[in-house]
C-alpha cells in the first residue's frame, strides 16, 4: 500500500509561539490514522495546514502525489481531501437536506457551475443520495428542518454526513464524537467502521481513547507541537514516552 498523505518537516509559529515543530507524518491508503495528544498540542493546527486554512512556515504537505501548500481550499477539496470540522460549520439558514446536497453538488459540478435555469426539483438523484446519507447517519427524520435549529450532537452528525457524501479519498475528522452521548458515540464508531470497509482513508483527531483504540490502525501522538511516537495501538499503549506525556493524565 502507498502513502496517500505525506507531511514533511511542517512547522508553524504564531507570534513566537511554536505551534508545530518539524512534523513528519505518513498516512497509508485505506487505513484509519488517529492523531492524539493533550489539549494545545497542535492537532487542529496540523489539520488546518493540510486543508489550506493555514499556510505552514516550512515543510510540505503532499496528498496523492500533489503538493497541497498554497492551494485554494476548494481545490484541495476537489483533490479529494475533505475535513469535518470540530465546531460545526454548517449552513444554519438552510435545511439539512440542502446542507448535504451542497457537497454532493460540489462533487458533481466542480468548483463553479452556472446553471440558474435548472430547476431544483430536477435534481432527484442528488436529493435521493442526500436523503440516503442522512438516514444512514440517523437524521432521516429531520431532513426538512433548518440546520440552525437542531441539537449540537445532531449538528456534529450533519457535519459528518456532509463529509461522507463526497466520498473523499481522505477524510480528516476533528474530534467527531466530542460532545456526544456514549450511545451516539458508539453509533458513530459503527458508522465509521462500516465506511472503512469501503476503503476510505481517514485521519482522526480524537480525545476519546475508547474511540481511538476501537477504530485506529495507526496512532500518532502529538505533544507540544511534536510527534513523539507513531505505531499500532498496541505499540502506543506500551510506549513509556506516551504514557508519560498523555496517557498518564488520562488514567487518573
Amino acid at each position, binding site marked *: 500500500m502507498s502513502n496517500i498523505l505525506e507531511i514533511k518537516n511542517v512547522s508553524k509559529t504564531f507570534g513566537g509561539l511554536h505551534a508545530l515543530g518539524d512534523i513528519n507524518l505518513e498516512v497509508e491508503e485505506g487505513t484509519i490514522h488517529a492523531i492524539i495528544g493533550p489539549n494545545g498540542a497542535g492537532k487542529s493546527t496540523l489539520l488546518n495546514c493540510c486543508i489550506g486554512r493555514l499556510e505552514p512556515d516550512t515543510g510540505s504537505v503532499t496528498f496523492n502525489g500533489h503538493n497541497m501548500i498554497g492551494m485554494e481550499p*476548494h481545490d484541495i477539496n476537489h483533490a479529494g481531501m475533505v475535513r469535518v470540522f470540530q465546531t460545526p460549520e454548517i*449552513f444554519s439558514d*438552510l435545511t439539512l437536506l440542502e446542507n448535504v446536497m451542497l457537497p454532493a453538488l460540489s462533487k458533481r*459540478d466542480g*468548483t463553479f*457551475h452556472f446553471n*440558474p435555469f435548472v430547476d*431544483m426539483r430536477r*435534481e432527484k438523484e442528488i436529493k435521493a443520495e442526500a436523503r440516503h446519507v442522512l438516514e444512514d447517519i440517523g437524521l432521516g427524520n429531520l431532513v426538512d428542518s433548518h440546520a440552525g435549529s437542531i441539537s449540537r450532537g445532531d449538528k456534529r452528525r450533519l457535519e459528518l454526513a456532509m463529509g461522507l457524501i*463526497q466520498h473523499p479519498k481522505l477524510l480528516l475528522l476533528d474530534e467527531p464524537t466530542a460532545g456526544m452521548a456514549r450511545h451516539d458515540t458508539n453509533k458513530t464508531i459503527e458508522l465509521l467502521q462500516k465506511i472503512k470497509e469501503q476503503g476510505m482513508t481517514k485521519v482522526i483527531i480524537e480525545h476519546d481513547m475508547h474511540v481511538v483504540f476501537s477504530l485506529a490502525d495507526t496512532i500518532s501522538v502529538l505533544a507540544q507541537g511534536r510527534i513523539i511516537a507513531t505505531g499500532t495501538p498496541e505499540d502506543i499503549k506500551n510506549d513509556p514516552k506516551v504514557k508519560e506525556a498523555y496517557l498518564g493524565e488520562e488514567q487518573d
Partner: protein
Amino acid sequence: MKELLKSNLVIMVIFAVIVLTAPAWLTPIGAGYPDILQKFAIFGLFAIGFNILFGLTGYLSFGHAAFLGVGSYTAVWSFKLLTMNVLPAIIFSTLMAGVFALVIGFISLRRSGIYFSILTLAFAQMSYSLAYSVLTPITNGETGLQLTLADPRVVDGMMGIPVTDSLPTTNLFGLAMSGYSGFYFCAVLLIVGFYVSLKIFRSPYGMKLRAIKSNQTRMKYTGFNTRPYLLSAFVISGMFAGLAGALMAATDPLAGAERMQWTASGEVVLMTILGGMGTLIGPLLGVGIIKYFENIFSALNESALHEVFSFLPGWLEEVMVWISHHFVGEGWHLTLGTLFMLVVIFLPGGVMEGITRLSAYLKSKFKGSDEITSEKVSEDAS
C-alpha cells in the same frame, strides 16, 4: 393543491394576471394611471435584480445606482445615434451595465462585509463625480443628456422615417412608449424579469448563493469557488439595474448624473428591505408601497391635511396638521426615513415577515392553541 400552487407555471400565470390587470385594480386607490404604473414596473425590475445579489448572497451594494445611470445614458445614446426604437436601446443598456458590473464587481468582490459596501460606495461616487466633470462630452454634465433635432439617428434615417420639426418620441416598432402601451411594455419586461428571478431562486445555483450568505467559509471547504458565484450574481443584478435605467430613458428620454448618486442606491436598498429581502415578491411589495405612498404623500399639502383632520376639534386639528405637514409634500423623505428605521428595528424581514407572523398568529388562533406555531411566533419575535 399546495403543490400546484408552487409550480412555476401557476405562479407565473397568477403574477402575469396581477401585473397586466394592474391598471384596473389600482384605479380605485388612485394609482391606475400609466405614469405611476410604469414607475412600479421599472423600480420593480431594479429591486428584483438588487434582491438577487443582496437577498441571496447578503452582499450589500451601495453602487447599483451607477448601473442604473449607465443604462440610462446608453439608452439615450442609442436614441440619439441609432433609432428611437427602444428594443436596441434596452439591449445595449443591459449589456453595457453588465460590462460595468463585471469590472466593478471583479474589484469590489475581492473584499466582503462592510468593506464590500464601502468599495461599491466609492465606485458609485466616482462614477457620479466623473459623470459631472470629465465625462461631460458623454453625459452632458449637469444639464443631463437629452435628445436634439440634430441627432443623426442613422438607423431611423435608413428606414426612411421622416425627420420632423419636433423631437421624435420613443417607440417599439411604432408603438408609443408613453401612456398605457408604455406601461404594458414595461410590464412584459417585469414579468420576464420575475421569471428569471424565480428560476434563479429555485435552481441549485440559487441555493449555492444562499449558502454563501449563510457560511461562505464553509462553501470554500465544501469545494466551491465562491468568487465566480458572487461575481455572476453581481453582474446579473447589475444588468437588471441597467435594464431599469434603459426603461426610465425609454419613458422619458433624459439621463442625468443624479441617478447615479449613492443615495439613489439607498432607495433600492430601502425598497428591498421594506418588502422583505431574500423573498421572491418582497422587493416588489416594497416598490409598490414606497412608490404609491410617495405619490400620495408628495401631493399632500396643508389644506389637504386640514381636510383629513377636519373631524377633530379645532385645536387638535391644528396640532395634527402642524405635526403631519412635516411628513408630507417636500417632507416625504422624512416619512420614508422614519418608516425605514422602524422596519429595520422591528421587522428586519420586512412586510413578508409581517405576513408570515400574522398568518402564523391567525392559524394558532383558529386552530386552537397549536403549540408549535405559537412557539415559532415567540421565537421570531424575540
